[in-house]
């Protein structure tokens, strides 16, 4: 039980809230890293998912290829990304971690986007086509708005995974919240380690709640999102 007290004292220490190693900086680094990883994953997944979802063919091949990203352990990806990052002159920390996180984020985003487009009521799509909508208009004005809640659901899953996994970056000298965990272990300062783990868990929960709210808000009028 002393550990709980130690952790509370660790959080109460003003020194841990200041400077380049302080909690606010580490939280921002974590958000920056996770946010960029998810953003890049969306940029990669979206064109593929939207195209295959719209034409309605071949999507499952794309999904299965993307799912390899789920099967690869992030730690192995990180080890793989490190020499590549050196070769490109990007150094340690941020970039290799980002490379390792992107394949983790792609599968849920790709799968959900594909299914979201696919699952839009075919009668609605046919009606739009009958009214003279072009294919791009159908995608933009019908399929995407109606599929948005499901798409955001995929981004939520990806983001929570990425926030939890971004801690690995500390192993390759990155910043972010993993720093508290890795340094806590190295220094045998278990209060720091537990505090770091709590901060990561908290950030993951905040991400989850924020996306849930966003999903509800994104539902077009007349469509209910069960959550």
């Amino acid at each position: 039980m002393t550990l709980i007290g130690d952790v509370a004292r660790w959080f109460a220490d003003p020194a841990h809230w200041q400077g380049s190693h302080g909690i606010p900086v580490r939280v921002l680094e974590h958000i920056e890293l996770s946010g960029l990883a998810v953003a890049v994953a969306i940029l990669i997944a979206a064109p593929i998912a939207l195209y295959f979802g719209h034409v309605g063919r071949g999507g499952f091949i794309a999904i299965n290829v993307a799912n390899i990203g789920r099967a690869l352990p992030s730690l192995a990806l990180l080890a793989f990304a490190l020499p590549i990052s050196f070769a490109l002159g990007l150094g340690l920390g941020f970039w290799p971690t980002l490379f390792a996180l992107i394949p983790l984020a792609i599968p849920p985003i790709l799968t959900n986007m594909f299914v979201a487009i696919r699952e839009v009521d075919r009668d609605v799509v046919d009606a739009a086509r009958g009214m003279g909508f072009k294919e791009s208009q159908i995608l933009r004005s019908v399929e995407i708005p109606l599929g948005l809640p499901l798409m955001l659901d995929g981004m939520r899953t990806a983001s929570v995974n990425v926030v939890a996994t971004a801690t690995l970056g500390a192993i390759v000298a990155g910043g972010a919240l993993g720093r508290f965990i890795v340094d806590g272990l190295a220094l045998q300062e278990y209060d720091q380690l537990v505090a770091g783990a709590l901060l990561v868990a908290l950030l993951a929960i905040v991400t989850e709640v924020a996306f849930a709210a966003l999903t509800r808000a994104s539902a077009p009028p007349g469509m209910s999102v069960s959550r």
Partner: protein
Amino acid sequence: MKRGRTILAALFAAAMVATACGGAGTGGSGATTTARPAVIIGSTNFYEQITLGELYAQILEANGYKVTRKFNLGNREIVEPAIESGQIDLDAEYLATLLAFIDKDGKVAKPTTDPKETQAGLQKALDPKGLTVLDFAAATDQNGFVVTKDTASSKNLKKISDLAPYAKDMILGGPPECPSPQRPFCLTGLKNVYGLTFKDFKPLDAGGPLTVAALEGKQIDVGLLFTSDPSIVAKNFVLLDDDKHLQLADNIAPVVRKDLVSKDDGTLKRLLNSISAKLTQAELNDMNKQVAVDKKDNKDVAAAWLKKQGLIK
């Protein structure tokens, strides 16, 4: 490295069989074997140790000793009991680390930053085990602080105390445990012994690829590496001299069984000491670089060095 290890394991197995069959080993290079005792040399599973083992083996072979190599045995937890029990007769050791290993609570002697003192303490601890430590080399394998050649020449840095005017603007990189107050040989020691306070500390790894990469990429200014790290030569880094003796004396020295020394006429001691006399840090690091970076064979590297030093023909 992996394949080399398998080959060495095979050699080791062959050596075991050979000795089991009555010691019909492969002799020296035809020199007269006038009652030269047979020597079994061991080493831990680390390339520097195998090179050192080769140095000892080849100088002895050139002088008519029958040498059996039992290299790559494992860590010190395996090799130290092996020499105590007589499964090997000789190995290369590191003064302070070996003393701390065999005298864990420091009852006999504690390692210090002075190699002579540490050697004397180590001998005291080795006496009851029937072992003796011979002359130590200038070369060490201990914590070292390293800068790039650019940094060294622009700021004229040669020793750690030269960092004094610059440290406040420099970033130090090392293992994450470096800032711990329980680690007197890292950040705490730099502050207490040298009065150095760095602008920042970047947690990396224990003398590994991250520290090398961070130094090269200028993400840190000063890095903690081991003093015999081959990347110091390979990457043109400058190892700063520990002029105020912060680090414990981990100089390299041969450790021999006393029963072997007593069977010998003193030649063995003289030969091994002649290696230690010439083995400077730069010489060791160059050999390590040839093995670890240029992927040369330990045997060839050792032979070339002994010839260059005029120790064998």
